[in-house]
């Protein structure tokens, strides 16, 4: 059996508490607060203690979906990525850069937010980028 603990940062609120995810055979099975991270010093709130629970939820999305004949249908990554890039390109060509808009996310990493706005600005050519900072 493969057991590991991985130090990471909580994904709920803006406190940024440090915690260990306990991993057993590729599944996150538990959460342990970290004592040496400065924000939480070994404490967690009720959400933090339970953060491992949604990771393996049976409701997780695990395959790309494309709407076909009105219904979202499983598709391969190749098809989904080509379709996405292709449709975005067509709309940009036909209606101009500012006819596209992007909502980045307060839930994904800094690096991912950087790439989303870089794609919007450098590839598409629009500053129509926002996220739910106000919500």
């Amino acid at each position: 059996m493969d057991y590991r603990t991985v130090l990471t940062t909580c994904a709920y609120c803006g406190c940024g508490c440090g915690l260990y995810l306990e991993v057993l055979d590729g599944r996150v099975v538990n959460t342990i607060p970290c004592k040496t991270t400065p924000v939480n010093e070994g404490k967690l709130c009720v959400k933090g203690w339970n953060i491992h629970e949604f990771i393996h939820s049976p409701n997780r999305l695990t395959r790309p979906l494309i709407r076909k004949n009105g219904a979202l249908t499983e598709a391969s990554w190749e098809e989904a990525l080509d379709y996405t890039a292709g449709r975005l390109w067509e709309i940009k060509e036909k209606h101009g850069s500012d006819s596209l808009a992007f909502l980045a996310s307060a839930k994904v990493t800094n690096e991912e937010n950087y790439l989303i706005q870089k794609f919007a600005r450098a590839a598409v050519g629009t500053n129509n980028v926002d996220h739910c900072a106000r919500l």
Partner: protein
Amino acid sequence: MTNSIAELENADCILVIGSNTTSSHPLVATRIFRAKEKGARLVIADPRKIQLALKADLHVRQNLGTDVALLNGIMQVILANGWHNQAFVDERTEGFDAFRKVTEDYPPERVAEITGVKADDIRTMAEWYAKAQAASIVYCMGITQHTTGVDNVKALANLAMLTGQIGREATGVNPLRGQNNVQGACDMGALPNVYTGYQAVNIPDIQNKFQAAWNAKLSDKIGLTIPGILSGLVEGSVKALYVVGENPMMSDPDVNHVEKALRSAEFLVVQDIFLTPTAELAHVVLPGASFAEKDGTFSNTERRVQRVRKAIEPVGDARADWEIMQEVSTRFGYPMNFRSPAEIMDEIARLTPSYGGITYDRLDGEGLCWPCPNKDHPGTKFLHSGRFTRGLGLFHAIEYKPPAETIDEEYPLWLTTGRVHVHYHTGTMTRNSPSLHAEMPEGYLEVNPEDARRLGVRRGDEVRVVSRRGHIVVKAMPTDRVEPGVLFMPFHFVESCANILTNPAHDPIAKIPEYKVCAVRLEKAA
């Protein structure tokens, strides 16, 4: 936050206004309790009797949307008694005279009429805050989610500058950022007017810097915020929307309008870890990876950049969002070939002065608080020491304005919305966590026992809440946490979606919707 979280415990007066800290930022609340144990005075200004209020030295319950009046009243008392810090005002600020002129029109008796807060309590707040050695302000969405959100924040800045309670250890103005990486998303330029590190898109030197770095022609036209994107979709000027890890079908005001907007999109892409109500409307849904399945960094509310580490492979065929974005970009004709998030951070650091010294090898341990301009810089614990970022601190003369929607005969009750301790935002994560879901499996409506009696409503009865935007059915919870005439409900629950009711009227500058105030009526459900 201008301060770091740990400093709060060394403040000797903490004013918490519009933050339900124990529910929404429990580990910040820990520091507030520690300060209290050390003898700090704790002042809570909140329309609801939140948990922190039970430990407060003073709790005032201002009427919804009257924060500017309350803060002006506090500052009027400070000025009238000469408790302000004239040396700080002279050396470090500008615009004082115009500010003083407006503020002097808010004596406590007038303010008491507007806010419902007793004049003597306003005097006490003023004295405690102004005379403290190190007073800290803590605020959250109760301040910002108003049509006067910017005014509210400026009024808090006025208060801190007037008393010199900023720019030192344990004293400053501390907005608590709601989402784990909302600070980082802003820092990374996920905003329509700025690149990374708040570098404006319409300043030619900055535009040129990014054009050279990204090898692309960039627009200097400020883009659309979420409300603008949604109306653009309805009007037809916006054709495609790409949503990553957001759920506007529950998080945005007037959900019926949001649905109309999203259904108008010629092409809607949603990248998420769950099939949210927003994803259900998409043309393409791309499965992203959760925080446990990828490397990266988050920036917390005290500007601390911390590592996120991959614990497991993405579930099923899900992929890390940075990898998906690169694939889409490359297929779009703009190749992106970063081999790791660490490489992306290197590019961020090169282009972003406040992140200039941040590299992954420095982030083990405690992380780094920006500004961190170079590799030898230790990071910055609190902001505005010695001088403000803009040079002199600018006072704003601000008049009180009522909320966009006020009660009338047809809609005689005030509704305000917020969060609970076991759920998070639109509930996509917490409601898929069995332990958290079990703690609170459904939404509820707080109603004062007096109003409940008048309507013949008992605990657990289903009631219909009706606003000008729509109506919902929810179970009533009579409680004196809210005052007569005021209702509260959390917005986490799709079955009783509070944002069907809320008012999309928003602040003219920040475009933040007025989630904290709207007018409704209450009926017993059949």
